[in-house]
C-alpha cells in the first residue's frame, strides 16, 4: 500500500517539525506525491501541536481525518489521548511516555488523566510506549527525542532503514548527524518490555 496518513502530535517546542520534514523527504525519495501540514505560530509556544503527513499517488487535502491515520506518532501522553480518535483501529500508535503538564493542570483547574498508556492499550493492543526522553538523554542530547521517535516509527513501516538514515542526514546540520543517527538507531532497535 502506498497511501499513508501519518499524524505527529506533541507539545510546541518538542521538535515535531523536524520529524515531519524527515517524513516528507522520505516520501519524496520514494517518488510519491506528498503533503505535509505544519504548525507555525502561537501553538509553538507550548500549545498542543499536530502535524499531518500524507503520501500516495495523488494527495489532495493535507489533513488527516478521524479514523484515518495509519501511524499516530505521539510525543507526549496527554496528546496521544487527545488525538487517539484519528488513528485507524489497526494503525500503529507510538507513544513517548514523557509527561508535560498543561497550564490548566498546573493551576489545578484540570486533572492529568492517570495511566493513559494502559487505557489506550485496552482499545489498541498494538500501541507501543517508548521512554524516548531517557533514550535521547543516553545519546547525550534530550533534543534527540524526535530522532528516537522516528526510529521506532521507521521500524513499523516497510520502508528501508537506509532511506530513513539518508533523509535524516539531509535534514540535520552536519555536526549533529552522528548524534541524531545514534538516537534514530536506538529507536529503531527499541523493544518494549511487556
Amino acid at each position, binding site marked *: 500500500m502506498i497511501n499513508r496518513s501519518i499524524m505527529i502530535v506533541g507539545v510546541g517546542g518538542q521538535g515535531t517539525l523536524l520529524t515531519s520534514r524527515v517524513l516528507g523527504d522520505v516520501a519524496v525519495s520514494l517518488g510519491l506525491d506528498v503533503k505535509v501540514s505544519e504548525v507555525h*505560530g*502561537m501553538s509553538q509556544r507550548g500549545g498542543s501541536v499536530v502535524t499531518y503527513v500524507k503520501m500516495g499517488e495523488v494527495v489532495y487535502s493535507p489533513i488527516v481525518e478521524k479514523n484515518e491515520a495509519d501511524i499516530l506518532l505521539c510525543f507526549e501522553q496527554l496528546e496521544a489521548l487527545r488525538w487517539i480518535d484519528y488513528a485507524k483501529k489497526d494503525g500503529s500508535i507510538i507513544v513517548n511516555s514523557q509527561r508535560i503538564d498543561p497550564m*490548566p493542570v498546573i493551576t489545578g483547574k484540570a486533572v492529568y488523566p492517570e495511566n493513559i498508556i494502559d487505557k489506550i492499550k485496552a482499545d489498541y493492543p498494538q500501541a507501543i510506549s517508548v521512554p524516548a526522553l531517557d533514550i535521547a538523554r543516553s545519546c547525550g542530547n534530550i533534543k534527540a527525542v524526535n530522532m528516537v521517535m522516528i526510529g521506532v516509527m521507521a521500524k513499523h513501516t516497510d520502508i528501508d532503514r537506509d532511506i530513513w538514515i539518508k533523509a535524516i542526514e539531509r535534514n540535520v546540520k552536519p555536526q549533529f548527524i552522528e548524534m541524531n543517527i545514534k538516537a534514530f538507531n536506538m529507536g529503531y532497535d527499541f523493544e518494549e518490555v511487556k
Partner: protein
Amino acid sequence: MKKLLLGNEAIARGVYEAGVGVATAYPGTPSTEITECIAQYDEIFAEWAPNEKVALEVAIGASVAGARSCCSMKHVGLNVAADPLFTASYTGVNGGLVLFVADDPGMHSSQNEQDTRIIARGAKVPVLEPSDSRECKEFTKIAFEISEEFDTPVIVRLSTRVSHSRGLVELNDRINYELKPYVKNPAKYVMMPGYAKRRHPLVEERMKKLREYSNNSGLNRIEWGDKKIGIITSGISYQYSKEVFPDASFLKLGMVHPLPEGLIRDFAKEVETLYVIEELEPFIENQCLKMEIKVIGKELLPVIGEYSAGLIKERLLGIKEEKLNNLNEDVPARPPVLCPGCPHRGTYYVLKKLKLNVMGDIGCYTLGAIAPLESVDTTVCMGASIGMAHGMEKARGTDAARKTVAVIGDSTFIHSGITGLIDIVYNKGTSTVIILDNSITGMTGHQDNPTTGYTIKGEPTKQVDLEKLCQAIGIERVRICDPFDLSEFEKVVREEIAAEEPSVIIAQRPCALLKYVKHGKPLTINSDKCTTCRMCMRLGCPAIVDKGGHIEINSALCVGCNLCTKVCRFNAIEKAGGVE
C-alpha cells in the same frame, strides 16, 4: 527539479522567478515565512518594515520606480495597509505590484477571522487564491503579469493551511526583468481630487476587463465529472472537497475577485445540485444569489472556523465518523503558554501582585492573560494598549491612571505604539507605559525589528534607542529595569504609576529562546526545605508542577532562569547536580 516546499516558500520562489526587485513585509502568522525565504535570495532587496502600511508604501514606491515589487502580511495587516491600498488601486502600477495576504480561518494565531476578499472588493483589486504549494508559485508569477497588463495591484490570498502545508513544486529559473523606465506622470500618481476623479472611471473600466479575463483565463477551470453534483470552490476548500466528492463536477476558482460570471452560469446550468464550498464569508455564494442561481452553501456550512474534509462530509452528506474506541476521558486543554525563562513572566508577576488594570497588546505577552498570571485586561489590535490606557484615564479620571498600565512589546511599540504615546503627551495624559523589550519580535518566531540593530538579511544597522525616542517626544520619566529583578521592578512600577505625569518603563531582558541567551543548569526542589507554600506556582512556569503532595521541577523543560528562586522564601529551589 521538484522540491517539497511550504506554500509560503513556494510564494517566495515565485517571487524570485518573476524577477522581483523589492520585497517588503511586517511579520504576521501565517505569512511570515514568505519574506524570510525571499531574504535568502541575494538578487532581491528584502526588508522588515516597521508596520504593514510602511511596507506597502515602500513596495508601491518600488513599483512606481519600475521594479516588480511585493508586500506580505497577515489578514489584519491589510487593515493597517488599507489606506495606501485603496488609493494605489487608483494610481495603478509601473512594475508589477503584488500583495500576499494570509487569512487565518480557525484563528490559530490571530485575534479575528476577517476575510481578505471583502477588503479586496472594497479596494477594487483582483484576488487570486492558490490551493496548494504548486499553485502558490504558479499564481504568483501570473499575478505579476495581471498587475502589469491591467495596471493594478493584485492580491494573492492565502490561508493558514495553504501557507503552512508543504507540497511538491517544480523549480524554474529567474526571468531577467528589466526595470521599466520611470516617467514623471502626476495625472497617474498624484491623487488629489482633480486627478483622482479621472482615475476612478479607469478603475471601473479595469474591473470590467478583469471580469472578462476571469471568464477566459485558465485560472478558473471546470473539471467535469458526474453532473448530479456540482461544486464551486477555491483555495484549500477545493482540496477538502475533492476528497469528499471525488466523482463530482467542479468549478475550481483560482481568481476569486472579480468572479467569472459567465463560467458560473455555464457550470450551474449543467449540474443538478450546486454547492458552494468556501471558508469564512459567503463571497462566492452571494455572487451566485445575485445572479439568481440557486446554490447550497452557508445554510449548511459555517462562516466560523476552519473547514476539513470531515466537516464537509458531515454537513453536506450527514456522514459522521464513528468512534472506534471506548476512551471518553476528559482531556485537559493545552493552551500556549509563556516559555520557561520568558522575561514577560517577571513583569506579570509584579503587575498581578500590584493588582493593576493592564491594557494589553499583541505578542507573546498576550499570554499573560491566562491563569495563573491572569494580568491582562484587554487586547484589541497592535498598538491599542497605549491609546486604551489613555482612554481609560480620560473616562475615569487621573485616579484610574494610578492603577493602570499599558504593556506593549518592542516590535509592537514601533509598529503603532509610538503614535499612541505621542497622543498621551500631547493630550496631557499621565499614564504609565511598560515597553516589554525582549530584543526581538517573539510571537511570530524571532524576526529582527528596528530596535534590534539587524536587518532581515542579518546585516548590522542603526538601532532605535527606545529611551531617547520616548524622551524626544516629551516623556520625562523613562526608566529601564530588568523584569527578573522582582523587587526593583516592583519599586519602579509603584513609583511610575504614582507619578502625575506620563512615564515609560522599559522592561529589558532578552527572549529566553534567543541563541545567545545562556541560562544555567535546570533547577530542582529540595524537599527538605520546601514547605509546599506554592508561591512558585504563581509564576505559571510550565516547568514547575504540582504533584499533589509535593512540587517538582521538570528538568526537561527548566532552563535554569532562576526566577522561581526569587519568590521562594525558604531557599528550597537549587541548581540540579545532573548534567544536561
